[in-house]
């Protein structure tokens, strides 16, 4: 009985989705649908990496230096060896590339999402306060946002991580690298959110229902979170997609410079970095395959972001 | 022969999964030197009429039928290149908001000279002399200095005067003015209208004045069109219509004027809103808001026909004015 009911419910939801602007545009946009499918596939593989991966890339006992630089099984170069165990070949330590990529994608995605969650939390809080309180607090916070934006995130991250690494030594740094990465990527891009949210707050503050809520004696936090925030959901959503893509790129870049995830616990960036020198000796796959995965992941997120912006942003909608 | 003759003009907007008719079978004529007002609520299709004459409809709008004869030429059949010789040259347009019509990064002089040079072979120097003369005609003080200024350095009223001067720059035969004073201060509105009237009269220019302000129409124009939901519902001499409106909608518009209301009395507004273009009701589009509607109004689309001093699209107009010989049935 309950099954039937939930089925009915989900069906009406599906119909609602199809009828909505978002749903219509999604179902009539092949690029958006394919991107979504690829994105979901990558996320599922990343989440279930421990179940899918044939090897544990973090376990040095499963790596045999005798297996190093095995080519992908379809690649039969004259000087290359292959092994059916290693579908995508192995890296210089003899680590199975397929397993390493699965775990690496998992790490990259996790860092990207957590960093953006942190950005969003900071940015939304600051934006709400700035817009709601106004006056001097507002101008100070927005000045800070200007200055923060004028500095490149990557630059700030590189310097922060470089100093942290020098300060703590690479052993301690490597152990906590994931937290440092999330913190530095998360802290530096808050103004994106803060500006958007502040603009909505300023627009909504003038409207009658906010006065009404104040008259009814609701506290400022309740008014902001329950009444004003829902109005900025779609811009926040659009920003977040782009930011996740950027965060993944930033993480990869930092790891590539040796300021991110260590080779023993590689993200996609550190895998690419680790394989770079072997490009000259012909073992292209160690760098290229994780590179392709990274690009595809970022590309589908960007494509989805573009599509969302076109659908949700009324300013662009008229175009 | 009339200067401009619009016949059966129909404009549609291609939406996501249907097309919306924004103008439905519009016909009217304007003689040389004649001034015609187009009146209606916002969304009635007034501005679209103006823009479609100059083929400046923004996408997804397009002319789906009808003809626009201007001085013997069908404007709907012109190529882009041919149209360029009409726009700004023989038909000029005055836009609603002077704050956003002038390009912010070009000086007034540049914007006047470029138009002259687009249509005449004149040197920059000569063009500037003509520009100064036209600025003087619209009573702009120190016109030589204005040429060097940017739009943001001037007030709204001053900018609209400049837009009028630009409209007159090439001595056009017809000016289309789309709500030329709505964006201005009330105190300046009358000045601008007076100026426009004076210039049209002295230059024998025809004028299409698009407005929602019946007072302005009664002062400025000789004939008027009343539009509702993309159709003309009443047309005739301005004085006749203002004094004796035939269509219930026109009556409503005139009764809603503050002058028609005694002090202390509430404004007599027409109840309800104009329907969205995608949801125009069958029959007479006004029937849901009409106090005189009978069941037939819901099914029969009224055609324009002569009654009183004007042409009116209302099947019940005789009953309304008690001009029918048979007994009126108020049931």
């Amino acid at each position: 009985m309950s099954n039937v009911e939930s089925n009915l419910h989900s069906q009406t939801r599906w119909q609602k989705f199809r009828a909505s602007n978002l749903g219509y545009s999604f179902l009539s946009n092949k690029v958006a649908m394919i991107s979504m499918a690829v994105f979901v596939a990558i996320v599922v593989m990343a989440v279930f990496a421990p179940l899918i991966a044939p090897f544990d890339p973090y376990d040095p006992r499963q790596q045999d230096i005798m297996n190093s630089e095995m080519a992908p099984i379809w690649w039969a170069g004259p000087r290359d060896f292959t092994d059916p165990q290693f579908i995508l070949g192995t890296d210089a330590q003899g680590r199975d590339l397929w397993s390493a990529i699965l775990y690496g994608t998992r790490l990259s995605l996790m860092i990207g999402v957590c960093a953006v969650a942190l950005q969003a939390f900071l940015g939304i809080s600051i934006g709400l306060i700035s817009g709601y309180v106004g006056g001097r607090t507002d101008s100070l916070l927005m000045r800070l946002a200007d200055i923060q934006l004028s500095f490149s995130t990557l630059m700030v991250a590189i310097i922060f991580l470089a100093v942290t690494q020098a300060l703590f030594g690479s052993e301690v740094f490597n152990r906590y690298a994931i937290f440092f990465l999330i913190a530095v990527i998360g802290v530096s891009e808050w103004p994106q959110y803060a500006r958007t949210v502040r603009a909505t707050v300023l627009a909504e503050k003038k409207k009658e229902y906010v006065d009404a809520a104040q008259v009814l004696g609701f506290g400022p936090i309740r008014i902001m979170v329950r009444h004003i925030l829902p109005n900025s959901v779609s811009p926040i959503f659009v920003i977040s997609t782009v930011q996740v893509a950027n965060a993944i790129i930033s993480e990869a870049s930092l790891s590539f410079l040796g300021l991110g995830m260590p080779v023993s616990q590689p993200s996609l960036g550190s895998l690419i970095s680790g394989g770079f020198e072997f490009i000259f000796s012909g073992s292209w796959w160690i760098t290229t395959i994780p590179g392709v995965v990274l690009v595809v992941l970022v590309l589908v997120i960007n494509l989805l972001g573009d599509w969302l912006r076109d659908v949700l942003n009324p300013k662009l909608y008229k175009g | 022969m009339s200067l401009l003759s619009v016949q059966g003009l129909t404009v549609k907007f291609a939406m996501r999964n249907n097309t919306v008719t924004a103008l439905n079978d519009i016909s009217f004529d304007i003689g040389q030197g004649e001034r015609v007002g187009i009146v209606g609520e916002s969304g009635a299709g007034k501005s679209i009429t103006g823009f479609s004459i100059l083929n400046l409809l923004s996408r997804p709008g397009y002319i789906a039928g009808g003809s626009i004869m201007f001085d013997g030429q069908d404007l709907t059949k012109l190529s882009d290149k041919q149209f360029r010789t009409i726009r700004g040259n023989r038909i000029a347009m005055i836009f609603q908001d002077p704050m956003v019509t002038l390009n912010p990064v070009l000086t007034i002089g540049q914007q006047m000279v470029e138009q002259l040079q687009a249509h005449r072979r004149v040197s920059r120097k000569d063009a500037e002399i003509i520009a100064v003369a036209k600025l003087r005609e619209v009573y702009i003080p120190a016109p030589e200095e204005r040429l060097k200024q940017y739009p943001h350095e001037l007030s709204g009223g001053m900018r609209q005067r400049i837009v009028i001067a630009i409209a007159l720059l090439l001595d056009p035969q017809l000016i289309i003015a789309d709500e030329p004073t709505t964006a201005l201060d009330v105190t300046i509105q009358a000045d601008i209208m007076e100026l426009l009237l004076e210039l049209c009269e002295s230059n024998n220019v025809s004028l299409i004045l698009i407005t929602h302000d019946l007072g302005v129409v009664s002062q400025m124009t000789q004939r008027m069109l009343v539009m509702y939901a993309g159709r003309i519902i009443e047309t005739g001499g301005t004085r006749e219509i203002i004094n004796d409106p035939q269509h219930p909608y026109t009556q409503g518009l005139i009764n809603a004027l503050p002058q028609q209301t005694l002090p202390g009395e509430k404004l007599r507004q027409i109840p309800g809103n104009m329907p969205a273009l995608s949801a125009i009701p069958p029959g007479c589009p006004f029937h849901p808001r009409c106090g005189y509607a009978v069941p037939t109004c819901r099914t029969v689309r009224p055609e324009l026909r002569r009654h009183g001093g004007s042409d009116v699209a209302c099947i019940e107009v005789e009953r309304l004015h008690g001009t029918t010989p048979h007994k009126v049935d108020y049931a």
Partner: protein
Amino acid sequence: MFAYLVKRLFQAAAVMFAISIVAFAIQDNLGDPLRELVGQSVSEEVRQQLRDELGLNDSFIEQYLRFAGRAIQGDLGTSYFFKEPALDVILRKLPATLELVFGATVIIIGLSIPLGVYTAIKPNSIFSKVVMGVSIIGISIPVFLTAILLIFFFAVELRWLPSFGRGDPVHVFGYWETNFANWAGLRQILLPSIALSSIMLPLFIRLIRAEMLETLDSEYVKYAYAKGLQTRRIWFVHALKNTLLPVITVGGVQIGTMVAYTILTETVFQWPGMGFMFLEAVNRVDTPLIVAYLIVVGFIFVLTNTVVDLIYGLVNPTVNLSRMGA
């Protein structure tokens, strides 16, 4: 105008002050200058005496003021590794980085404006769709990966272009050597410049396209059509001018961002510039050099932002600089 200039310079000075505090805090916490000076084999008493002499026991503020005073005179400490003033090391590496930034900027400006404008005025043409498709792929590939792929194809596989280093740049004046004087030099700088421009170029194409589309939709463009102007004049005078104004502001910020990307590009191509030097300094824990780099890069950021703001004020007639100072 003057008031605005003063205000802007004051703001720049405030940001520089914040950067110098951060830089000093890093120097204060990172590495022990004594160890560098005398090594481990000195007794604790001698150490304390030395600390007093060097002023290392003074308060934070006193030490900072000394640091700032020296920094203003151009003394940013001595590199542990190079055994020479840190600022000299950086200035020696600066031309290589600036030439790289210049090469990338030429590519970005030369391609983004025509492509951005074209995709805006002909949004439905096949070429526009290709440009937009390539752009979104472009912003999805990290700079370092573009660099690696360029090396793999053009240097390793096709052997058309050199894979790393600056080659033999031609000496111009002072210590400045350039890659733009001859063909061999250009071959060296081509791949790194393309790599460095690879993320900014698509961003700028998209930005210019979006701004241009918005401008083409504006009232004054519609009015320009109603005036009977030539389409080309409307595109390139009425629309383009308004399009490029906001692009200048964004462009200024992006020049700063490009400095960060030079670190990545220089690392992949082993380009002997500041960025490559910085990473080496980090690996060697060469604190004075790290701190000096931080200050120089911070200065470049502040300088470009200030200059761009001023240029924007001069170019845009609607910004009244004399009023903005109030």
